[in-house]
C-alpha cells in the first residue's frame, strides 16, 4: 500500500461520509444526540482540505495528518477516537510503502489506541464492535497469504457484520449507555461509520 493508495482510501472515506451523513445522524438520533453524521462529514471534509497540497514523506504521514485533522475538527467522542486511530496507525508506517503485515500490525496499534482512550471492549456497542472484527479478519487474511485487497474486503464485511450485531447489544459506553436497555434494537452509529471506513479501504485497494 503506497501513499497514492492511502490518499485514495481517505478520499473514499470522505465520499462515504458525505453520502452517509444523514443515515449516521439518524442512527445517532435514535440512541444518541443526532450529530454523528455531521461530525464525520465535517471531519473528513477538513481532512480532504488538509491533505490537499500536503506532501507526505510516507504512508504514515497521510494517516497521522488525517488523525490530527479529525481531532481538530470533529469534536464529540468520534473526533478523539477516530483521530487517535488514524494517528496510531500512521505512526507505525514510516516508509513510502506499507507491507500488508505492517499494515495489519499498524491497525492493531490503532485499535489499541482507541481502546486505551475509550476503554470500550467488544460488546459495549461502540465502534470497537466493528473495528475489532475488521482487524481480526484483515490480519487473518494477510496471515493466510491473501492479497491486501482481499484482506480489506474481508475486513469491510466483518466490520459491517459487527456493526449489524450492535443492534442486539445494550450499550455500556458512549451516550447510548444512558438509555440502558432502551439502547437495544438500534445500530450503533460509530460502528456503522467504522464499517464505512473499511468498505472505503476495500474500494481503494481493489480499484
Amino acid at each position, binding site marked *: 500500500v503506497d501513499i497514492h493508495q492511502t490518499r485514495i482510501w481517505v478520499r473514499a472515506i470522505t465520499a462515504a461520509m458525505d453520502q452517509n451523513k444523514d443515515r449516521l445522524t439518524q442512527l445517532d438520533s435514535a440512541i444518541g444526540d*443526532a450529530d454523528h453524521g*455531521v461530525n464525520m462529514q465535517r471531519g473528513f471534509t477538513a481532512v480532504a482540505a488538509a491533505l490537499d497540497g500536503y506532501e507526505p514523506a510516507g504512508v504514515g504521514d497521510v494517516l497521522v495528518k488525517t488523525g490530527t485533522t479529525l*481531532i*481538530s475538527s470533529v469534536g464529540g*467522542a468520534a*473526533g*478523539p477516537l477516530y483521530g487517535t486511530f488514524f494517528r496510531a496507525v500512521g505512526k507505525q508506517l514510516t516508509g513510502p510503502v506499507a507491507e500488508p503485515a505492517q499494515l495489519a500490525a499498524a491497525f492493531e496499534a490503532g485499535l489499541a489506541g482507541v481502546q486505551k482512550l475509550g476503554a470500550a471492549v467488544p460488546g459495549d456497542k461502540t465502534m470497537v464492535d466493528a473495528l475489532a472484527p475488521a482487524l481480526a479478519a484483515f490480519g487473518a487474511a494477510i496471515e493466510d497469504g491473501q492479497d491486501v485487497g482481499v484482506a480489506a474486503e474481508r475486513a469491510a464485511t466483518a466490520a459491517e457484520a459487527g456493526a449489524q450485531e450492535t443492534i442486539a447489544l445494550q450499550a455500556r459506553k458512549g*451516550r447510548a449507555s*444512558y438509555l440502558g436497555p432502551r439502547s437495544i434494537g438500534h445500530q450503533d452509529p460509530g460502528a456503522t461509520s467504522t464499517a464505512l471506513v473499511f468498505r472505503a479501504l476495500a474500494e481503494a485497494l481493489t480499484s
Partner: protein
Amino acid sequence: MKKLINAPEAVLSDALAGIAAAHPSLRVDAEARIITRAGGPSAGKVALVSGGGSGHEPLHGGFVGTGMLHAACPGEVFTSPVPDQVVAAARAVDGGAGVLLVVKNYTGDVLNFEMAAELAGDEGIEVATVLVDDDVAVQDSTWTAGRRGTGATVFVEKIAGALAEQGASLAEVAEVGRRVNAASRSFAVALSPCTTPAAGKPGFELADDEMEVGVGIHGEPGRSREKLEPASAIVATALDAIFADQPLAAGDEAIVMVNGLGGTPLIELYIAYAEVAKYFAERDVRIVRNLVGDYVTSLEMAGVMLTVCKADEQLLSLWDAPVNTPALRWGL
C-alpha cells in the same frame, strides 16, 4: 423543523456573532471559537475554562464574567468542542496561576478536554480538571460511561469561580469544584423532544399524554416513558431519585435549581418550584438559595431539571459572592 436560524451549518457562527454583538463584557474569538472576558486574564488568579456542545445556552458562554468563568468553548450543537478550542482558551485566559477545566462527564467532552489538558500542559500552562457528573437518572458504574454532567455544572462554575476570584490556588479551586459536584444531584423530565438543526427531526416522539423520565440534555430519550402526570408527581419522581442517591436530613441546607430545558414557560417552572418547596418543607430540609429559570437547556425541549446541592457554610458564602455574567448576576 422550525428554527429561527439562517442555516443548520451556520448556527454556531451566527450565534457567536450575536453573543459578541450583545455583550460588550465578553470577547468572542470567532476564529478560535472561544468566548472570554473582555478584560483579559486576571494576573495571579486561577482561570476557569468550560465548554461543551452548543444548544445548552446560557451554558457556558452566558457564565463568562467576573466571579465565574474566564472562558467558554462552544462546540457545534450537542458536539463537544475540539481540543484546539480548549487550548486556545487556556492560553488566552491563564493569568499565571493555572487553569481549571470544568468538564461535563460525556465521553466526547472528557476525551477532548483530556487531550487539551495534555497539550496545554505541554505549553507550560498548569491545568486541573473538575468532572461534573450529577445526573442520577443514569446508573453509575465503572463499566459504563458514568453519570452525565448536567445542572450541577452551574453550581460548580459559580462556586469554584468565586473561589478563584478570591485568589485561591488551582488545587483549592479544583478541590471546591469537586466538593460541589459531590454534593450535587440532578434529575430531568421532558414533556417534548428537541430537534438539532443538523438532524431536522426530533430525537424521539411523544404522544400527547406521555413524558420521558430521566432525560439528559442532548435530546436523547430518557430512562423510561411514562404517562404524563401533574407537576406535583413529576417533581416527586425527580426528588425521590435525588434523595435516594443523596439523602438530605432534617436540618440540612440546600441550594436548589429548577431549570427549564428551553421550551418550558417560566410560569410552569414556578409551579414546579412550589412543589419543590413543599417537598423540602415536609422533610424539614431548608432551601437556602434557589434558581428558577433556563440555565442549562436542551434547545427547545419542554421539561424541567431539578438540581440539588447540599450546602455548607463555605459553599454558601461562595455562592453569595459577587458574580457578573450575562446569565447570572448579583452583588456587583
